[in-house]
């Protein structure tokens, strides 16, 4: 027998969220991947888990793996406001409050029975491909998962660009690991023989998608910018940074997306925000650091309410830096996978990161730099205050600093961030009026 439930007073209808077609397509792709993961074992497919930077998606596809990405799982749980409890559960289980909240959200999800962000089960992976690229925490993260699940782990150690360049020794080291360790392990776990021509075909697809992605991101050099290169870009990079790089679906997605954006450029339209098209572009910013996911929409609103558009961001390069010419190369498949891993943003040294930001400020005609410093992410955050100083010194443009976290809602202080942003916009205005006066 059903019990009548008290009826709450009707709430005023929420304003519908506006999304670009490409954003909807992206969501569909990501959700489909979660469904594939949920049903993989039922249909006899093996599951791999790997990280976004240094993500060897094309290689994993050669072995028919369904592909899970723990950071994406954590951020999707963050967007759905589920990560807070997961993090606290992990802390209750003995994990320090000081360490990365992606890791704790992931471990908390495991503790809660491995239900993925879409509500479908997220089965235990059959292999962990530990691409140790640009983030030390990755190594510990997969050791923790391995300890819990006991699943096979294969490590790919990618040396850091300490001298600001990739030398032959570094590349050879990565290629050798691919040949001697990674590929044999993936063959053994999957039962599929490695076929380098299959890899070449996927890399051909990657190239096309990468070129279109660059076209999309560089469209922000226009005035007005047709995209937001940070909040909007996280939707755009979704497929190529995760389980879809090298697939025909990704190629189609980026072709469609580029077509849409080219159209917006022709029509001199601004970016689409959750509340519709931005009418007036008042500030053009470069942003360093990942976004906050638990209050993503509120965070974005603080920008578009003020007419601020992010024209370039470093976070949109975390899964691959393509805008300075790198493309996966089917003629040098393993070497180009190595170069891809070595070139990810967080694997660049400080002078390189500063050069890149200064270049963005100049090429995208930005008003300044905003750093969103993430408590969880030492790889990004340690030393960002020097980045701020150096960029200000070299470009003469104002820079600002805010702090939040990836998926821990306890570290998002909306009022504090809003205040700082408002002060920053005032600073830009003052700088502009001084420039007009003199």
């Amino acid at each position: 027998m059903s019990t009548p439930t008290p009826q709450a007073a009707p709430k005023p209808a929420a304003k519908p969220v506006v999304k670009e077609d490409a954003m909807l397509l992206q969501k569909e792709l990501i959700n489909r991947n979660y469904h594939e993961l949920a049903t993989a074992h039922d249909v006899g497919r093996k599951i791999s888990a790997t990280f976004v930077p240094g993500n060897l998606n094309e290689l994993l596809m050669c072995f028919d793996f369904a592909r899970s990405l723990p950071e994406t799982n954590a951020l999707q749980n963050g967007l759905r406001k589920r990560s807070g409890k997961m993090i606290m559960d992990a802390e209750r289980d003995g994990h320090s409050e000081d360490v990365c909240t992606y890791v704790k959200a992931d471990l908390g999800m495991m503790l809660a029975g491995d239900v993925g962000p879409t509500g479908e089960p997220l089965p235990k992976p059959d292999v962990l491909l530990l691409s140790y690229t640009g983030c030390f925490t990755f190594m510990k993260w997969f050791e923790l998962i391995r300890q819990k699940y006991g699943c096979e782990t294969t490590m790919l150690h990618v040396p850091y660009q300490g001298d600001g360049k990739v030398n032959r020794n570094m590349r050879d080291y990565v290629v050798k690991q691919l040949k001697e360790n990674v590929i044999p392990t993936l063959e053994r776990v999957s039962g599929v023989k490695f076929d380098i021509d299959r890899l070449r075909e996927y890399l051909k697809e990657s190239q096309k998608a990468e070129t279109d992605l660059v076209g999309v991101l560089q469209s922000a050099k226009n005035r007005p910018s047709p995209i937001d290169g940070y909040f909007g870009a996280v939707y755009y990079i979704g497929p190529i940074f995760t389980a879809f790089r090298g697939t025909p679906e990704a190629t189609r997605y980026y072709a469609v997306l580029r077509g849409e954006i080219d159209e917006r450029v022709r029509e001199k339209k601004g970016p689409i925000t959750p509340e519709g098209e931005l009418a007036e572009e008042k500030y053009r910013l470069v942003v360093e650091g990942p976004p906050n996911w638990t209050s993503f929409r509120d965070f974005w609103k603080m920008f578009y309410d003020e007419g601020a558009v992010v024209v370039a961001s470093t976070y949109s390069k975390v899964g691959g830096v393509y805008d300075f010419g790198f493309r996966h190369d089917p003629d040098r498949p393993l070497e180009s996978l190595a170069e891809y891993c070595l070139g990810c943003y967080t694997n660049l040294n400080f002078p390189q990161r500063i050069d890149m930001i200064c270049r963005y400020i100049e090429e995208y005609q930005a008003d300044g730099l905003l750093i969103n410093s993430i408590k969880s992410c030492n790889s990004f955050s340690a030393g960002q205050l020097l980045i701020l100083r150096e960029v200000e010194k070299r470009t003469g443009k104002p820079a600002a600093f805010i702090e939040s976290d990836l998926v821990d809602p306890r570290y998002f202080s909306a009022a504090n961030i809003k205040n700082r942003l408002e002060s920053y916009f005032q600073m830009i205005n003052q700088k502009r009026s001084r420039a007009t006066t003199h």
Partner: protein
Amino acid sequence: MSTLAEIVQRCQGLFEDLRFDAVRQWKAAAPGRKAIGYMPIYVPREVIHAAGMLPVGIFGGGDQLEVIQGDAYYQSYICRIPRSTLELGLTGRLDCLDGMLFPSICDVIRNLSGMWQILFKDKYVRYFDVPQEYHDAIGGEYYVSELEVLRDDLAKLAGRPITDDDLRNSIGVYNDNRRAVRDLYEYRSQRPWQVPTAEVYLVLRAGNVLPPEEHTQLVRDYLAAAETEGRPKRDNARVVVTGSFCEQPPLGLIKSIEMAGCYIVDDDLMLIQRWLLDDVPTEGNLLENLSQAFLHRSASTASKYDERREDKGKFLLESVKRNAAEGVIFAAASFCDPALLERPMLQEVLARHKIPYTAFKFAENTGQMAPIREQAGTFADSIKLWSAA
């Protein structure tokens, strides 16, 4: 020969000297001498020494340094060692160094290498990456090439080549140093009341600024002097301290653990002096020998990848067994990613083997020792109570 008190006093003086006068004096003693700083955990000091240079361990500013400029570069959630190290650099205390090596230990130290490149443009700066892949033909080849780069760089800085004979001699010097340190640790494990860790630690810290030959002699002198002291044996709990491999706890914290009723019978403080577990051969290809020692015969710590699940905690378990320890104290620096991420895995292994443990965090400038003393004391009491049952 110096008395025990004189040796300890000398070490204490070197420990407290944040101007690195010992390094300055060493450099001033002969024209053209150079010194190269390094951060924890491990760099091959043999190569620096073979270039005729003084390897200098830079292990933060401790609890006596007021950090002002260094704090301006870091958010509150970053550990203290990079900020105090920057403070040392920005205040000119490290101007006696001609270069700095930043080993691959974590993202914070990694990024500090780039900051150093920007802030100290006239110095030699190198991020020293070590392999996390342990096969000679893969990680080994990569590491030998990295060693060759270091050898060439330092030769350029020295203005002379580093010959095989130089390297052979230096490997021998450090083999001797490691033997002396191993002897000291073994003695402490057997008779911890004779060589309290608060002293042992100071003796090891002296190795940061002294030439290795002199440090080896110092270690031996200390051991010889300590053996003659009649120190009372107490009914303390024998513990291993782990997690302090990078940012070092204040000396007061080590004393507090001991005063609370614990004998520290093993630890991972100043790990570089015990990183290579036995002698590096001085015949054959010397860089390959250094590589093989690193890959196959080196200490295990949170910054190193464990290839197999069953290897996790093995090193710590062996230490507990070898040193007849009754418990483990996890003492990690606040915001130390490697140590704090590693800790739950090690704790699980200890729990499986029914080895008691306790855990706390510190910063190099932690001043309040009462809570530490209380926690360590309770831990020691519980060990004594339960082991007696």
